């Protein structure tokens, strides 16, 4: 079995042209992660630039309203650029700098990772090109403009379905032509080894903070950590620290779109099968010939036909649990958290909120249990699509 395996999943299913670049990346990362200077620098940017540690907020009103366990919200939405994506991007761009690369490329779906990558590139004075599905550039025009303001070039990808998976294809294709001076800042716990490990490590700050903050506030571990899963980086970041703590349930919420019994969803772990794409063996939504299927979710950030290999393994071993949440349930949760706590969660994170509410209502927790929901991003970006979903018309300019 090759390197970078999580059970049978993971590996390096990449073209020969990229193998040397992946080897160099692995070597550079292994050195960096053991270098106190690198870790000190990363910690500096986490604290001084990204606003870490993010708060672990006791959602007292939500707790009272649901009448169940104590609900805590991990506020990744309060990070600079408004989501967990910055944790990974700061780590990878610092690594790029250390490797002497002057240019970065990235893929993006909704634009959150693209904006984070463009932000870090601006901060460190690097050239940045972001690949984004043509369809997504239309749906997320504002984020395209934000990336342009940050100095990044946004390349619209028209191949395939013109969405996130095609942006990933194009970023990998571009990297095969430019690996000598270009660093590929991959946005989730996916891709060929060592990316799933690198991204998980940079995101694992979320879970370490949750543990520390929960111990400080409650003197004990949470009973359950809940996060949304597309590629799976915010969930992997929240879960990783707790994997050895068997008393902590790790629950992922997948995007079920119109429902897992329809053909419009992105619930990979619920409905998918073993496959290889984007450099990794994992679980994918595919047809009987192994063709990757088009996926759908109201959340552009969860709109991906695969999932990170470590999640596939957490599910296979039973350590992680994964459940589908529909658009309707996510929008309800979006509105619920906004009204009850005055916090507008990203539509992605709303899937985790919905899953938590569902579990509490199903009586899965005792009253003194502690449930942590990872609010991976803020929902300002989703206000238009939620309004559209609710049938409310908003004029874009005042």
């Amino acid at each position, binding site marked *: 079995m090759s390197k970078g395996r999580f059970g049978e999943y993971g590996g390096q299913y990449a073209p020969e042209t990229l*193998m040397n670049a992946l080897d160099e990346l692995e070597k550079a990362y292994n050195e960096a992660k053991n270098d106190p200077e690198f870790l000190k620098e990363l910690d500096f940017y986490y604290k001084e630039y990204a606003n870490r540690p993010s708060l672990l907020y006791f959602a007292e009103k939500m707790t009272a309203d649901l009448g169940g366990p104590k609900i805590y919200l991990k506020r990744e939405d309060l990070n600079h650029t408004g989501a967990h994506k910055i944790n990974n991007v700061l780590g990878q761009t610092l690594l790029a700098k250390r490797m002497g690369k002057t240019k970065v490329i990235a893929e993006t779906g909704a634009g959150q990772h693209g904006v984070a990558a463009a932000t870090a590139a601006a901060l460190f004075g690097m050239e940045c090109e972001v690949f984004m599905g043509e369809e997504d550039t239309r749906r997320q025009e504002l984020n395209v403009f934000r990336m342009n303001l940050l100095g990044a070039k946004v390349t619209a990808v028209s191949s395939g379905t013109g969405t996130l998976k095609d942006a990933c294809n194009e970023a990998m294709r571009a990297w095969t032509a430019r690996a000598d001076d270009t660093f590929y800042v991959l946005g989730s716990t996916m891709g060929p080894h060592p990316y799933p490990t690198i991204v998980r490590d940079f995101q694992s700050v979320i879970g370490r903070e949750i543990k520390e903050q929960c111990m400080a506030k409650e003197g004990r571990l949470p009973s359950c950590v809940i996060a949304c899963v597309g590629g799976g980086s915010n969930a992997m970041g929240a879960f990783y620290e707790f994997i050895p703590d068997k008393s902590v349930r790790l629950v992922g919420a997948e995007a079920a779109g119109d429902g897992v019994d329809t053909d419009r969803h992105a619930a990979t772990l619920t409905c998918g099968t073993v496959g*290889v794409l984007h450099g990794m063996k994992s679980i994918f939504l595919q047809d009987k010939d192994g063709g990757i299927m088009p996926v759908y979710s109201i959340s552009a950030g969860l709109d991906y036909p695969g999932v990170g290999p470590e999640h596939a393994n957490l599910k296979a071993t039973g350590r992680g649990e994964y459940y589908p949440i529909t658009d309707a349930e996510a929008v309800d949760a979006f509105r619920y958290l906004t009204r009850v706590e005055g916090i507008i969660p990203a539509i992605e994170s709303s899937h985790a909120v919905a899953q938590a509410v569902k579990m509490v209502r199903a009586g899965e927790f005792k009253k003194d249990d502690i449930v942590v929901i990872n609010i991976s991003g803020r929902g300002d970006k989703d206000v238009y699509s939620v309004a559209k979903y609710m049938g409310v018309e908003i004029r874009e300019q005042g």
Partner: protein
Amino acid sequence: MNRVDKKFAELKSAGKKALITFVTAGDPSLDVTERLVLEMEKNGADIVELGVPFSDPIAEGPVIQRANIRALTGGVNLEKIFGLVEKLRLETQIPLVLLMYFNSILSYGADAFFAKCAEVGIDGVIIPDLPFEESGEIAEYTEKYGVYQISMIAPTSTEERISKICESARGFLYCVSSLGVTGTRQEFKTDFGSLFGSINKYAKIPRCIGFGISSPEQVRELRGYCDGLIVGSAVIKQIGSAPDDDGKVAAVGRFTKSLAAEL
């Protein structure tokens, strides 16, 4: 004896180099693919690569990507391609290799896939997303059924990698001419002298260059380094150059002949 080995032995004794041409199976239809293979053979192709269309071909440039979409839209899948090869085998013994992505094999089942390849007469498989490190996954079956996995070497492959790849390589070495994806190129920036300096130290089988080759001039430029040349996107472009099937077949025949004349 595998048809690939037999072909290279024949070429060697005739003092010739191989012309390997590529078409995507089912672009524009499986019937036309059948005619194209025979026409290419008639005009001097020594080995034919059949592309198995896939939704996400990450090593391909726009020309072959579009060919993939056309074939998939036409409902082509592995089973139908096996059917095409069965028909072709009644007419020709030209070595046939599939170019495909690993997910198609995984989905079919590796054991069943290689058994079927042997049964219908496929001689080898090129899998751009199954590098040396992962090839253990199919080694048992390629061995069992005598179907070769054709190994790739890139300009970025280190000497250490090249030596490992050459150790277990079968059929021929697919040496990638340039960084990036498939597609025609105006010029080659790779230092072939240095790349083949390493490859020649370890290669025990014929070496062929592919990616970006589109003209008889480029065939002349590269033939001195290797034992054969692989032409893909440029053939697909020829298919697109004529509106009707007869025109497509004739255009590909003429193009093949112009390349073969240089080898």
